[in-house]
């Protein structure tokens, strides 16, 4: 790390997240890319390398080899273009690869784009495609689904710590409150705890409103060395930590169901790099693919003691204005979860937060964090950002 240069985000952009019937994979990534280039005051020719994140373009639109496709759609000519795939952590992992590419000195200006087009296939096919994040032979073959895997975690968390279904519901309620203020979010409806509790059971105890939706969307970030960042943007945001860890793919192979070890390891490494502690983080985008995932995340990232995530949520400590604002974008639940884009969108949201540009939901934070998870926890990527 000593030999690495300091890196900043100098431009961000994203498409609206939702069911974008009129727009194709290519159009949404181009839209996000254009916004990022404008934000960075750059031309396409300034970009030297591209990292593209998509989890399942093969199954969803029959297209592999998407990195050069993305590069071309954004007007980048002949630059190195690489696809990064780590299931739902594809975006966060791609961000890390982009960070390392600049930090190492290999490149100066790198773009990272995450995109997922999920509505060109049936809901059933999209769900099957997402299933690829789990263990095919030993989980999916047996009839496991992603809601089921997270439900297994939820039941254990309730058994070990007394977390309640109401506390899980409060995560969804809060994230819809935040999404309501985010013009890019998929959902702009406020929901109540009862709405969540009365929604259809998907995998007991998780209900429809405990689950993040199927979404189309794209997000792009442009990275540059900190020392030249102000050339492109008055308010660059420094990436002060980038960490990643893996764990066994099958949930049943983990040491415990009530923590994601990969999150804990990545978070520890990130705090070490940034020389910070959990209490220093003021705003954080966590991976709430299901409500229980946010509870686990806020514990594993160190904001609250293990087992107290439910209580903390109930007490409003994760709201805007609380101890640490979690998922101001609306999270995966409220903003939507176009799989490959999510990890980058999280960085976009934190960038806006640190710049004071998150209309209607600003936290005036100086230090923010993103947390992106793959599958049921086999990958976790944590980044820490600081206003420059």
């Amino acid at each position, binding site marked *: 790390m000593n030999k690495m240069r300091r890196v900043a985000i100098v431009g961000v952009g994203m498409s609206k997240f939702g069911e974008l019937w009129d727009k194709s994979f290519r159009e949404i990534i181009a839209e996000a890319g254009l916004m990022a280039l404008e934000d960075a005051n750059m031309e396409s020719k300034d970009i030297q390398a591209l990292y593209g994140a998509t989890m399942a373009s093969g199954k969803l639109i029959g297209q592999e080899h998407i990195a050069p496709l993305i590069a071309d759609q954004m007007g980048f000519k002949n630059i190195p273009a690489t696809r990064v795939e780590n299931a739902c952590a594809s975006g966060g992992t791609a961000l890390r690869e982009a960070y390392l590419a600049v930090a190492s000195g290999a490149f100066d200006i790198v773009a990272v784009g995450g995109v997922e087009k999920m509505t060109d296939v049936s809901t059933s096919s999209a769900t099957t495609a997402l299933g690829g994040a789990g263990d095919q*032979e030993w989980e999916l073959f*047996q*009839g496991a*689904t992603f809601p*089921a895997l997270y439900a297994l975690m939820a*039941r*254990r968390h309730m058994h070990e710590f007394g977390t309640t279904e109401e506390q899980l519901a409060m995560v969804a309620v809060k994230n819809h409150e935040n999404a309501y203020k985010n013009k890019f979010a998929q959902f702009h409806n406020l929901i109540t705890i009862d709405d969540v509790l009365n929604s*259809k059971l998907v995998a007991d105890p998780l209900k429809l409103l405990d689950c993040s939706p199927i979404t189309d969307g794209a997000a792009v970030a442009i990275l540059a060395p900190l020392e030249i960042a102000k050339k492109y943007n008055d308010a660059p945001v420094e990436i002060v930590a980038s960490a990643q860890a893996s764990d066994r793919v*099958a949930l049943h192979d983990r040491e415990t169901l009530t923590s994601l070890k990969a999150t804990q390891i990545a978070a520890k490494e990130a705090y070490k790099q940034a020389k910070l502690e959990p209490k220093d983080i003021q705003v954080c985008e966590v991976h709430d693919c299901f409500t229980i995932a946010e509870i686990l995340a806020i514990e594993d990232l160190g904001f609250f003691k293990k087992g107290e995530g439910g209580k903390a949520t109930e007490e409003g400590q994760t709201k805007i204005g609380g101890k640490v604002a979690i998922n101001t974008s609306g999270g995966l639940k409220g903003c939507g979860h176009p799989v490959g884009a999510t990890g980058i969108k999280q960085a976009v949201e934190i960038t806006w937060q640190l710049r004071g540009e998150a209309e209607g939901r600003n936290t005036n934070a100086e230090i923010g964090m993103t947390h992106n998870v793959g599958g049921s926890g086999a990958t976790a990527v944590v980044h820490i950002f600081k206003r420059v």
Partner: protein
Amino acid sequence: MESDGIALKWRRIPNRYRLVGSHCENCGADFFPPRKICPNCGRKTKMVEKTFSGYGKIYSFTVVRTPPEEHKENAPYVLAIVQLDEGPKLTAQIIKSNNKEIKIGSRVKLAFRRITEDGKEGLIHYGYKFQIID
């Protein structure tokens, strides 16, 4: 007519029918399903075949109500993480059981059932599910 994915599933028959796993003689750890490299021992791995007894207990469970297509006919079904008596955990359905309450800690025993079918003319894939025992 040539079918897809036959060998992929055929290889797993002894594991799925009889719970054949592996055991590392170097460190004594048991694994289901079997694996080549022991995570504790790396290159010092001494892996041999081991068949599990089929007894265990429920570590966690849920009820799947929105299954993937190939499991639809069975829905809703209980999906559980079962901890085998010997230690390893696996994911499996719990067979429908009249009036037997399913709890974390319930004792279970191996059963043999249809898991999926490759359509009307395709292969039937059999394997393990578990039943609650008193």
